[in-house]
């Protein structure tokens, strides 16, 4: 491997305060009981800032503010709502370097990804839905679609600002107001987004941000004055939310876990497929709900493919997220690192063979080397459970029918990948996979125009595209 000189992105582009409040009704304020929690840089364990921990009364105030704002916001002509969203999109573009560095600091993801993937998609998402705001009657949901009301939105830590965009942009375009709870370990970019709203002169109360842990989110989704719940996160929490809203008449969409199969057929272009498999599981440290965490290799090419994959993995650079050459950054939290470590140990204990490239890890912070398991069977926990880390389980198959059978043998159904040079085979397999997003000869591609969401226990509803409007229209 070439040794590269350090190429650090400057963090001086971000100016962090020591303490952040909740964003309610257009103003920052501390939690009523004064509670705070620290948010740390997972690459260094340095505390970045203290953040207000919203209690029930704070959530109540945020929901009340959103309710008041709903009257005027929903009555605004769509063309005017659109212009606010266009403004937000432009401000995000203007501040994208700052926001990318911030995201890498708080989340641990490589700056190359926050700069080249997250932030461009965030801005694109606001642009896309801005354009819908005055065209809703043409979206195919009836001639006079109406907003639902106040949306309570809870998002995960893996793509903090992008998940915010997926939630906030369609909600606002359709005339709803929102109370959003970012993840406990990555609250900062949402609070910076509040400042973007201020710069855009978005009316007070249209967007409210309440930071906190699981209890804050639980109170928000159960709040009787929330009309619509949108959640992205684990399948277990998704089940709890679905049960909590049962009988209330609240609308719900859930984007939950996955255990995607990435299927490589014997006619696939090997080098291209290796790149796709690496991107599928090591992109964002594998903290991706649609990650290609189960590699299904056709038996006849399995050995050659694994040799090429291992060679490629030795060139992955793991380390400082702010270094522009870094491929794999820090694991987001100690708790997540513990889960990845535990499941990997179970993988070995259950008899799978573990391999990682020889890769030095920093002394401080949360790190996990890119890892593959071979000799994995469908019964192994590492083939069934979502690890949400840079860990790939490799299985083999002989026929397309067996590949489809194994790919679908999971309660999840979020995504899948197919690698083959044969178009008819790709389309036939894509048609049989029970998953919401299928990537053929590519992986982990996202676009605001492209609907995203799962089958089965990966949740329900779609985000993105025309389909993404439905959840926010009555």
């Amino acid at each position: 491997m070439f040794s590269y000189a350090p190429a650090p992105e400057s963090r001086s582009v971000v100016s962090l305060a020591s303490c952040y409040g909740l964003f309610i009704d257009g103003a920052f304020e501390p939690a009523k009981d004064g509670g705070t929690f620290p948010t740390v840089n997972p690459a260094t364990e340095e505390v970045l800032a203290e953040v207000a921990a919203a209690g029930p009364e704070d959530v109540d105030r945020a929901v009340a503010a959103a309710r008041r704002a709903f009257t005027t916001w929903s009555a605004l002509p769509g063309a005017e709502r659109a212009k606010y969203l266009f403004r937000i999109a432009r401000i995000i573009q203007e501040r994208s370097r700052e926001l990318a560095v911030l995201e890498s600091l708080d989340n641990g993801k490589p700056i190359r990804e926050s700069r080249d993937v997250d932030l461009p998609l965030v801005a694109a998402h606001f642009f896309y839905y801005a354009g819908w705001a005055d065209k809703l009657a043409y979206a195919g949901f009836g001639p006079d679609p109406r907003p639902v009301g106040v949306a309570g939105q809870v998002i995960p830590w893996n793509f903090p600002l992008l998940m915010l965009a997926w939630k906030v942009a369609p909600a606002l375009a359709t005339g709803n107001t929102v109370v959003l709870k970012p993840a406990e370990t990555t609250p900062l970019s949402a609070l910076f987004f509040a400042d973007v709203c201020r710069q855009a002169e978005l009316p007070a109360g249209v967007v409210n941000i309440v930071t906190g842990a699981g209890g804050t989110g639980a109170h928000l989704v159960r709040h009787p004055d929330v009309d619509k719940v949108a959640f992205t996160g684990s399948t277990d929490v998704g089940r709890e939310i679905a049960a909590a809203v049962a009988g209330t008449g609240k609308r719900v969409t859930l984007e939950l876990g996955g255990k995607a199969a990435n299927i490589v057929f014997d006619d696939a272009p090997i080098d291209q497929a290796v790149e796709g498999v690496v991107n599928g599981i090591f992109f964002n440290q594998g903290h991706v709900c649609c990650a290609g965490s189960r590699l299904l290799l056709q038996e006849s090419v399995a050995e050659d493919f694994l040799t090429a994959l291992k060679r490629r993995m030795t060139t992955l650079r793991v380390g400082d997220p702010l270094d522009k050459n870094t491929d794999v950054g820090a694991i987001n939290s100690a708790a997540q690192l513990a889960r990845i470590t535990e499941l990997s140990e179970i993988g070995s204990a259950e008899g799978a063979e573990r391999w990682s490239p020889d890769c030095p890890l920093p002394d401080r912070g949360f790190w996990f080397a890119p890892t593959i398991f071979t000799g994995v069977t469908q019964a192994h926990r590492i083939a069934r459970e979502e690890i949400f880390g840079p860990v790939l389980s490799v299985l083999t198959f002989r026929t397309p029918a067996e590949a489809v059978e194994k790919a679908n043998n999971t309660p999840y159904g979020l995504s899948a990948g197919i690698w083959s040079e044969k178009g008819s085979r790709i389309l036939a397999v894509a048609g049989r996979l029970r998953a919401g997003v299928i990537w053929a000869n590519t992986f982990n591609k996202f676009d605001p125009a492209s609907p995203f969401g799962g089958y089965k226990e990966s949740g329900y509803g779609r985000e993105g595209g025309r389909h993404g409007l439905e959840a926010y229209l009555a």
Partner: protein
Amino acid sequence: MPKSSTRLTVRKTYKLFIGGKFPRSESGRTFVVNGDNVALASRKDARDAVVAARAAFGGWSGTTAYNRGQVLYRIAEMLQARRAEFKALKVPGDELDAAVDRWVWYAGWSDKIAQVAGGANPVAGPFLNVSTPEPTGVVAVIAPTSLLGLVSVIAPAIVTGNTTVVLAPEPQTAITLAEVLATSDVPGGVVNILTGRYPETAPWLATHADVNALDLTGAEPGELAAELERDAAGTLKRVIRPPAGSSGFDADPGLRPMTALLETKTVWHPKGY
């Protein structure tokens, strides 16, 4: 042969409809409805019906949309032909007409819904990106009592390629409809009909891990419906809630009864020489 003035009518036995056959309840139970002994479905019947529905799903969802439309139109023909029988069950003539017409309406949707609910997405990159609606899977339905209500929950589920387990509170109408289905080239297991008391059987379907969606259209809004929705959350089933207020089934159903039971699959494929 001398014509007897005392000839007895041959009565119909009302049984369940599972996997294209008309079995009695495995429990051996019956209950009396309008003087007839009707099969009272049990938990085991419900589970057998799910097995039949799952077994039928691959074939039915894999058949062409054109063919599914043909089958639904055939159902309309058979229902039309059996008007007298439904009239004898006191189904009003207007409702019968509306039920026939609803099958015809949904028959036409079979090869159009994908064009209305799906399409090509203009992504910012060299990819063909296409979204297509696909059936959710096995749908458990708590059906309304009326014939039109029954048709209005079964037709959108099956025209989109799903298979169903229907809990029917009005047994004679439902089983007579099953006889229509059984003579309409609907493959066995696509529609399974259980007669009996839904508060007894529905919880088994709401928690069943091989059921993908739960349609509560025929359930009373209230605590039982909420409990069933909570049960369904355990396996993240798609849930169609009981309608608020008594809307009836005369209005244009719109797309929602179909789209609620469809998943959107989006396929990305690179473009390049």
